[in-house]
């Protein structure tokens, strides 16, 4: 047996993957292994966060991410509070900071925030004292999604390094694309971004990605294809003309799937527009990792909540 890894986790917040080192990212993924094991037991709970309070502060609708975080907190034995825009004083015009301070004053440990403005999690981390976990801030980052995507890829291939991972769709407005890009490049994968020029600015090349507007030209080299959800609002702002044209050029159609590598791994952050960015039978097929992503999302979020709450300074422990 080898000696224990000396790495420890010291960050109080998880705001994004851009600022994390490769070691820190691996640390979270390794920690998630333990939490995945918890979900296989008959009693799917550990007391690690007993007595702590985790608040889901969602200024943007998202049933799946919210329930994932809620379940993650509950499996850690934390108390959870759900706070959504429609049921709070935000609709009465309260600022983000005021709302957060009011919540914090009730004695809580973690705020999980989803918000339509990039930088909202950063802003909170500067103004309240509890831990902040970013569940998606505008088009900036969705770190737990990036982490669960990496975890799923690592689980499937045993590694990240050297893999060719394509992210396809509305990249410019995608926090999932950014978080994935930052983490995958740090861990040595080659990231290929695919989309129309109106949704994929070339400046992404300076962030370490290969950029192409021609899906078919790269389809045969990919180990992983991560399809992003098409957002129909982009038609109104002329970022692409019609859904039909988008699907024909950037959808994972059956025909394209046939031209992929035999063991290509297909992913999607959800929710899917079946038949638009991805064909149903591919999404439900044996090469799809979509459901594993959801399962792993729970383990990753448990790991993140566990790590940020125990990242406090103190004396060392003697048994």
């Amino acid at each position, binding site marked *: 047996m080898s000696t224990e890894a000396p790495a420890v986790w010291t960050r109080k917040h998880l705001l994004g993957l851009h600022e994390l080192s490769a070691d820190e990212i691996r640390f979270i993924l390794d920690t998630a292994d333990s939490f995945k094991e918890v979900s296989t037991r008959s009693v799917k709970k550990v007391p690690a966060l007993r007595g702590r309070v985790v608040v889901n502060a969602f200024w943007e609708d998202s049933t799946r991410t919210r329930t994932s975080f809620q379940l993650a907190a509950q499996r850690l034995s934390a108390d959870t509070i759900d706070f959504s825009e429609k049921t709070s004083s935000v609709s009465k015009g309260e*600022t983000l900071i005021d709302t957060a301070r009011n919540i914090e004053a009730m004695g809580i440990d973690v705020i999980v925030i989803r918000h339509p403005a*990039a*930088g909202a999690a950063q*802003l909170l981390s500067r103004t309240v004292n509890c831990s902040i976990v970013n569940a998606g*801030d505008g088009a*900036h980052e969705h770190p737990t999604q990036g982490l669960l995507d990496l975890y799923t890829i690592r689980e499937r291939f045993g590694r990240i390094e050297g893999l060719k991972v394509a992210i396809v769709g509305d990249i410019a407005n995608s926090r999932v694309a*950014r978080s994935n890009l930052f983490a995958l490049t740090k861990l040595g994968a080659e990231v290929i971004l695919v989309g129309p020029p109106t949704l994929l600015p070339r*400046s992404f090349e300076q*962030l370490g990605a290969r950029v192409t507007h021609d899906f078919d030209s790269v389809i045969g080299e990919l180990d992983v294809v991560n399809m992003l959800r098409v957002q129909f609002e982009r038609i109104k702002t002329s970022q692409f003309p019609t859904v039909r044209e988008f699907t024909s050029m950037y959808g994972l159609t059956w025909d394209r799937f046939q031209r992929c590598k035999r063991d290509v791994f297909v992913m999607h952050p959800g929710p899917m527009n079946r038949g638009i960015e991805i064909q149903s039978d591919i999404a439900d097929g044996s090469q799809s990792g979509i459901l594993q992503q959801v399962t792993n999302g729970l383990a990753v979020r448990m790991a993140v909540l566990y790590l940020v709450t125990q990242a406090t300074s103190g004396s060392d422990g003697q048994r």
Partner: protein
Amino acid sequence: MASILIQNGTVLDPSQKLERKADVLLRDGKVAAIGTNLGQADRVIDASGCYVTPGLIDVHVHFREPGDEEEETIASGSASAVAGGFTTVCCMPNTKPPLDNEAQVEFVCRESQRVGLANVYPVGAITKGREGKELAEIGSMHRRGAVAFSDDGVGVNDAAVMRKALQYAKMFDTVLMQHCEEHSLSGGSMHAGLASTTLGLAGIPAEAEQLMIARDLLLNRTIGCRYHVQHISTAWSVELIRQAKRDGQKWVTAEVAPHHLLLTDEHCATYDTNYKMNPPLRTGADVKACIEGVKDGTIDILATDHAPHLSEEKELEFPFAPFGIIGLEPALPLYVKALVEPGHISWMRLIEMMTSRAAAIVKLADKGTLRDGADADVTIIDPNREWTLDIEQFASKSRNCPYQGWTLKGRATHTIVGGDLKWQISH
């Protein structure tokens, strides 16, 4: 009022190409004499080691009166101006209600007199309500004392309306100051580039500014109305102005603000809204180009675009926070830091850009100069004084400023307006 004798300083008056050690005598609100042995005065100021310059002028400030008096008033703004060494400022019309009629022009002029610190001149709106559709009463406002016209905060988006404005304003030999921003390309909260892509923020492309400059230069080629580009920020914008001037369009002028000479879009990485303004901070290459524009005269004057906002407005999510930072009080040393210290321009040229050139654009003949009989607006500057900026000490009501803690060199020590000492430094 009392007479003032300023002794032992170095007079620096670009309007007379004057730079020499001399005394200055101010009497009855005018410059009486420059020389030696000027006789007695009621008050004597020792300006040893300092420059004695015409009072500094800033043609681009926002005083939020009427409408947002908690952010700034003409009174607090004037106090901020004199604390920065400015004797004359021109305030923009995006107040609530907007400054698009004589009565409001009158209000600003009267309030400026009542407060009695810096000279505050109103800039009237080009269009009614700043809506960009119908011309405002430019003639009446001009008669009452508006020194320029602008819809600042936005540009005049409709080419037909802008063309009419140029034709109409030409009649009064007044100047149109344009906030150059093509509306349909706008909507972002920072410069569109690598930084905005990394941060996931919608960007304002450089072309938004360049498009309106190019359009206005073309519209104005055969009209020749005096046209002034506000807060220039991109390399190609500077090049467009350069070409126009080379082309013989002598009615075109431009200004640049301190932040576009010192900061870049990378500063937005922490989502600190003190780095959010419009036009946004651009890239390092744009900063270099603006500095080049100052060096070769493409850019005529320096102006702060002093834009006060309440803390609770700025302490919002980056996309939702208002644009703008204040700038009157640190302006002079910031220009020194950006332009004089690295050796790009001399003190003479710096003062020219802050006095005579500015006065010429807004046609204030008796300001920006120390020739005999000019208004006794004088700034005494200690170019060697080192100090640390403390925003909490500002006379402005607002605090939205990114330069907290900066070590600066150079500072106004005395500000004299109309022959009265309105501000001096507290040691």
